C-alpha cells in the first residue's frame, strides 16, 4: 500500500477503515542469507538497504522486544553532520544526504525538518575552534556558516547574550541540520524492508551464536536455532553483552544518557541550539515541547534511568543559556543506554569470526547516523568490503593507532 495525500483523503471519507498493518508478523524460517540481530533504527535500515540497494532479500531482523524499542525511541531526534575529522565528516554527510531524500525513498512521513543546528560560542578561542570546524566541514562538502552576535541575536533574541560568566558571542550554524520524527524513522524502514521480503521477527532474543572453526553459521534464539550465512549484530547499548556470547571483549562501556521534554509551548526555538560553555542541547518538537539533554550520568549503567544530580546539571546549563526556559514545566524525563566507545566514534566492521559482523559504539550519535549506518553496514555485509565513508570505523583502530577522537579526550568513555 502506497501512502499519498489522495489515500488519506479517501480514507477520511470512509471512516479510516481501510488501513492495514504495514508489516507482517512471521515465524522465523530455518535458514536465511543474512540474520540481523537488533530491530532498532540501525538494524531496520540495514535490512532496508540490503533488500533495496544490494539485492539481498532473504533476510531476518530479530529483536528481543518490539521493533524500535531501544534508543531509536529514546533520543532527542537531532540530525546534523557538523563533524571535524575526515573519517567522520564524509560518513555523517552521507547520512544527511540520505535524510534529505528519505521520505520520498521509503514513502513514509518521517517529519524530517531541516530547521538548522547552531553551536554557540562564548570566547575568542572557542570562535576560532568553530571557525576551524566550519572550514573543515566546508572542505568535506558540508554547509557551515559562522554567525556573529548580531546575526545570532536576530535569530534567537531570547538567549542570555550578556551572561556575566559565559557571554554568548555567536554560533556555528549548519542550516541543513535539524530534527526528524524518531519512531517514524524506524517504522518507515520496517515497512520498506518488510515489503521487500525481509522477515521482521519480534520477541525473539538471541541467546548464543553457532560458531565452529571460526565460522559463524547461525544464532540460537528463544524461538529456536536460526541458520544464517552471515550474522550482523546491531544492538548498540547492549553490544558488550551480545558480543560476549561470541567470546569478544569490546572497547565499549555502557552509560546512561538522560533526556527531557517540557509541556507544549508556542514556537520559540527556531532550530537546534547547543550551549558552548557546558553540555546542553535543545530543540522544539512539532507538538511544542522543548526536547533537551546534556551530559551522561557518567558511570556504567544498563538502567534506562539516571540520577538527580545530572538532572540538576542539565537544567543549570539550560538556565545559563536561555533563562526563559525556567518558565517551562518539565513534563517527562527518561534515559537510554549508550555504547560509549573509547574514542567517541562508532564501529562498522567485520569481526575475527568469519560471517559475523558488528555495528555499534554509537555514543550519543546514533540517531543522526541511522540512514548511513544502515547503508554502510549493508554494503559491508553484501560485498564484504567497507563503504568508503565508513572505512575508518574499524574495531582494530585502537591497535593500529588510527583513533577517531573528535574531542581529543583519550580513552575515557564517559568523557566523550
Amino acid at each position, binding site marked *: 500500500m502506497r501512502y499519498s495525500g489522495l489515500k488519506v483523503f479517501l480514507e477520511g471519507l470512509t471512516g479510516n477503515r481501510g488501513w492495514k498493518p504495514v508489516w507482517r508478523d512471521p515465524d522465523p524460517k530455518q535458514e536465511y542469507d543474512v540474520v540481523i540481530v537488533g530491530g532498532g533504527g540501525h538494524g531496520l535500515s540495514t535490512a532496508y538497504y540490503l533488500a533495496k540497494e544490494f539485492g539481498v532479500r532473504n533476510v531476518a531482523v530479530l529483536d528481543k522486544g518490539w521493533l524500535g524499542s531501544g534508543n531509536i525511541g529514546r533520543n532527542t531526534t537531532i540530525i546534523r553532520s557538523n563533524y571535524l575529522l575526515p573519517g567522520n565528516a564524509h560518513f555523517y554527510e552521507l547520512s544527511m544526504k540520505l535524510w534529505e531524500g528519505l521520505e520520498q525513498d521509503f514513502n513514509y512521513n518521517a517529519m524530517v525538518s531541516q530547521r538548522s543546528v547552531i553551536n554557540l560560542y562564548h570566547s575568542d578561542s572557542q570562535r576560532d575552534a568553530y571557525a576551524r570546524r566550519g572550514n573543515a566541514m566546508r572542505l568535506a562538502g558540508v554547509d557551515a556558516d559562522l554567525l556573529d552576535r548580531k546575526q545570532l541575536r536576530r535569530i534567537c533574541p531570547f538567549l542570555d547574550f550578556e551572561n556575566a560568566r559565559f557571554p554568548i558571542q555567536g554560533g556555528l550554524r549548519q542550516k541543513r541540520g535539524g530534527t526528524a520524527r524518531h519512531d517514524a524513522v524506524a517504522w518507515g524502514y520496517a515497512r520498506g524492508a518488510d515489503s521487500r521480503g525481509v522477515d521482521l521477527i519480534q520477541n525473539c532474543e538471541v541467546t548464543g551464536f553457532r560458531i565452529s572453526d571460526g565460522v559463524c553459521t547461525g544464532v540460537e534464539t528463544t524461538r529456536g536455532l536460526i541458520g544464517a550465512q552471515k550474522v550482523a549484530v546491531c544492538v548498540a547499548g547492549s553490544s*558488550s*553483552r551480545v558480543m*560476549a556470547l561470541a567470546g569478544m*571483549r*569490546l*572497547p*565499549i*562501556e*555502557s552509560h546512561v544518557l538522560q533526556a527531557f521534554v517540557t509541556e507544549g509551548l508556542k514556537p520559540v526555538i527556531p532550530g537546534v541550539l547547543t550551549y558552548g560553555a557546558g553540555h546542553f542541547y535543545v530543540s522544539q518538537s512539532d507538538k511544542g515541547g522543548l526536547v533537551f539533554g546534556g551530559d551522561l550520568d*557518567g*558511570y*556504567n*549503567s*544498563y*538502567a534506562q534511568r539516571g*540520577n538527580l*544530580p545530572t538532572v540538576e546539571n542539565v537544567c543549570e546549563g539550560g538556565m545559563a543559556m536561555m533563562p526563559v526556559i525556567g518558565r517551562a514545566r518539565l513534563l517527562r524525563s527518561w534515559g537510554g543506554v549508550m555504547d560509549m566507545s*573509547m574514542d567517541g566514534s562508532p564501529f562498522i566492521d567485520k569481526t575475527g569470526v568469519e560471517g559475523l559482523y558488528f555495528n555499534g559504539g554509537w555514543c550519543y550519535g546514533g540517531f543522526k547516523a541511522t540512514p548511513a549506518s544502515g547503508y554502510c553496514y549493508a554494503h559491508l555485509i553484501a560485498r564484504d568490503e567497507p563503504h568508503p565513508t565508513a572505512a575508518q570505523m574499524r574495531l582494530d583502530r*585502537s*591497535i593500529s593507532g588510527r583513533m577517531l577522537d573528535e574531542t581529543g579526550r583519550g*580513552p*575515557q*568513555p*564517559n568523557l566523550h
Partner: protein
Amino acid sequence: MIINHPLLGPRDASEFTYLGDASLIDRPDPEADDAAKQFHDYVYLRDNPVGEHRELWFHEHGDRSWLVVTRNTLTHEITRVELAKDVAIARGRRR
C-alpha cells in the same frame, strides 16, 4: 546514589568522579614479552557487565581518596565500598 565511604560514612555520589572498571588497578607487567598487547587490552577493552560491577570512584570533593565500589549496573544498588589502596595491596601491589 549514596556511596558509603569507609572512613567518612554515607556521601552523595555527586562528590565523586568516576574512572571505570576496577581492573585498572591491575596494571600489566611492562617487562612481559606480550606487554604491548596486554597494555592495549588494559587501556581499551572492558568487560562492561550487566549486574555486579567493581569500579573506581575518586572522592574529589572530599578526602581525595580512591574507592573501589561494587555496584549493580542494572539497579544502581551499591553493595560494597572499599579503599582502593586496601584492594591494591591485597592484590600484591606495593601501594
